[in-house]
């Protein structure tokens, strides 16, 4: 049984003068512990696909099944809880709550899950150690570099103990060195915590790091291959 299954997914935006078919009849599955890149040129539908995968947007047609749950049929309130407990998110930028420290940002997601104060503190500290920010826990986002901020975001995504982590162009705002080391870290987490990562990118160096590469073009899956 696949972790995630997209069945006949299509997405049409009707907000523009000419409707845009951002995704066209996508069928794809993702398994546990994957480390997968969604690639493709700008406008190919990567963000749209990740949003639908993460329950942030509804497809025009088709179903999304995660861990045997059809999230396209969920009530909004349940979907929020589902995201909280099943999906970790890393966005391109402005991920963190600017007024909270790195530690508090990681703790926050567990606060939403009603984890006890002691446990969430411990867990957050461990995760920040894991992502290499043991000495920056009390810094606010503005006191951290872009790469460090993304590490905090990954730590936060892991803190809720999700089934998988979605990251939409997590390295887009990073220089190549930071991008590289973020990927190192994600890979390490993938191995250490057996965590599934699905991230979009159009950075060749990042693509190289993925074990599976799904290429989108014009809202369709053009290629789906395993990196050796």
């Amino acid at each position, binding site marked *: 049984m696949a972790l995630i299954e997209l069945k006949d997914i299509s997405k049409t935006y009707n907000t523009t003068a000419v409707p845009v078919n951002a995704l066209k009849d996508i069928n794809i599955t993702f398994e546990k512990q994957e480390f997968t890149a969604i690639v493709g040129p700008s406008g190919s539908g990567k963000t749209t696909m990740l*949003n639908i995968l*993460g329950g*942030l*947007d509804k497809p025009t047609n088709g179903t999304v099944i995660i861990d045997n749950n059809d999230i396209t049929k969920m009530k909004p*309130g349940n979907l*929020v*809880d589902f*995201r*909280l*407990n099943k999906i970790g*998110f890393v*966005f391109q930028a*402005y*991920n963190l*709550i*600017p*007024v*909270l420290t790195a530690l*508090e940002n990681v*703790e*926050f*997601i567990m*606060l*939403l*899950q009603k984890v006890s104060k002691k446990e969430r503190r411990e867990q957050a500290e461990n995760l920040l150690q894991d992502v290499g920010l043991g000495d920056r826990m009390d810094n606010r986002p503005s006191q951290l570099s872009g790469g460090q901020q993304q590490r905090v975001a990954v730590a*936060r995504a892991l803190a*809720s103990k999700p089934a998988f982590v979605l990251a939409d162009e997590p390295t887009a705002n990073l220089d190549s060195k930071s991008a590289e080391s973020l990927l190192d870290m994600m890979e390490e987490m993938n191995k250490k915590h057996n965590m599934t990562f699905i991230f979009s990118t159009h950075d060749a160096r990042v693509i190289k790091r993925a074990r599976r590469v799904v290429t989108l073009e014009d809202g369709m899956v053009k290629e789906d291959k395993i990196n050796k």
Partner: protein
Amino acid sequence: MYLKLAWKNVWRNKKRTLIVSASVFFAVILSCLQRSAQIGSFDYMVHSITKIYLGVLQVQHKNYWENRSLDDSIVLSDSQKDEINKIKNITSITPRIESVVLISGDSLVRVAHITGIDPHAEDKVSGTSKYLQKGEYFSLKDGALIASGLAERLKLSIGDSLLIYGLGFHGQTAAALLPVTGILKFPIEKMNTSTVYINIKKAADIFGLENRITSLAVMIDDLNELNRVSGDIHKFISSDETVLTWEELLPEIKQTIQFKTSSNFILIGILYIVIAFGIFGVVMMMTLERETEYGILNALGMKKRRMFLVTFFENVFLASIGTLSGIIAAIPVTTYLAHHPIQLTGEIAKSWEQLGIEAVFSFSADPSIFVNQAMIIFIISFICLIYPMLFLSRLKIVKALKK
């Protein structure tokens, strides 16, 4: 942690929060002072009118207040007075015979307001004895107590004779020659230049009234019970007699108070509308500039309800900073002023005295003043919450993340 987050959010833009807090601060101080002065001066107005000469209520013949004629006098039996005195909240009663007469000393003649009083009962109602400057008060029997301003004008002092000439019951002539046995100094100029007190028995003699009086003045201990007490008194008097409250006795005072209150409400209202826009502006900016953040939080799994809760806390903090500091600053000021009223001088003083009010600008430190200001600010800020509420209910993650 939600509270902590809210508190930190409030200070994201320090300058903005300080500006809106400062404007709330000044609005609260200003309106506290304004209300304090208003309530204080009205309380004082009512107090000085009722306490010094009017009484809170008066039992009179139903035509007396209009005609001011001794022919419209009344007879109250001892048992009636007893019953009235027993009514709840009534602290004291005193009978009076009032009339306007001509008086003269050696050669000068003036118009004076003469009142026949029972010295002890009158003192309980009006505290008259404390105005005594010279001579004796409680022994008043066949002599006259005269206000100091009037005494000066007539060049009278203790022991001198005072001639009274007026109109008695049923048009008979009322005249008497009385020795001055005391000089009273009243805080109200108008009273101080026109008042003569004589014993009520003597007054009955002079005016041929026998056991008739023109009014029974009544004091009560709680002004909120005014109308109830008035109703209770009605049970013990005849249909020719009536009970008038101070508001009915001096409608112009009531009107002045109402007019000033409403005109001040308009001013304060404008002030608060300005403040409301300030608060709303900040709430709106705080909401709009965080659309992406709200979107991310919602994506991560924070319910809109919970985001609204944090926003609600932010709002409470935002309103509290200015309100609490404003109240904390206003309390000592109003408390000081409440204990140290400002003595008025010049034209303003004259105009107050013409209304029969002591020219003192009083303040009130009544807690309700501060509570009311705080409530107004909080109501404003809760109304402002409608904006983030609608905003959050319409929030679309995908759209917010694109910003």
